[in-house]
């Protein structure tokens, strides 16, 4: 699902944002990028904040063991 579509769903719902955000499948990196651009105190910011809560950007830790 596109982030913009997910934001639209969240912006128009009367249900719990947490509840709805858990069911929306979006890419964490796209959510993080959109959240970085969003202005605080806007509907987009509130929705993206809810999405980012359940779609955190995970950074892979490089293995310290030498590979053969």
């Amino acid at each position, binding site marked *: 699902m596109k982030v913009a579509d997910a934001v639209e769903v*969240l*912006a*128009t*719902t*009367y*249900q*719990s*944002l947490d*509840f709805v955000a858990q069911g929306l499948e979006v890419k964490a990196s796209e959510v993080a990028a959109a959240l970085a651009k969003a202005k*605080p*105190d*806007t*509907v987009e*910011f*509130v*929705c993206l*904040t*809810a999405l980012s809560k359940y779609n955190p950007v995970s950074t892979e830790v490089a293995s310290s063991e030498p590979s053969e």
Partner: protein
Amino acid sequence: MALPSKVLPGFVASMWMQTSAAPFTTANLAVWVAQVTTIVGTSAGGTGASGTALATIEAVPAFGQDDAVASFMVAGARQSDKIPTQSAPTSMTITAAWNPSDAGLLLVRADAYSGLVDRTYVIAAYDGTNTVAYAFNARASQFQIDAQPGAEAKCVFTLHPRGNQYGWSNS
């Protein structure tokens, strides 16, 4: 939801209600600019274009959540079990001086007669410069007028917040 970013050192609390029965969506309840500010009047730091004050409020008892209990009974058994469940939101029973010309109270009374009208309410804390607002959607009910001759007439009504429909915002 955005959390209040400021601790108000001294403030005036006031309550506001939407004049049109078009409750905000959950996300908009947490947005001050162009949303919650339109309900809060200028006397509390808002713009107030689509809201009216519940100015005569005298008392708002504690509200929030309470433990809910589910009761079970087996037919023919003498004892029943009460099992604690998830906490349930309590309603807000408000006492206000009754003024039959007050626009806000008349809206609340009409909503209570209907029982089906959802509306956005805002509790605003204003320190003269900034406002912290708690907005929620609720239905009104149990509107009663206490017109004892020995005292000022009062009205008592209950707001039933809709589940999960609330938000914090600030100016």
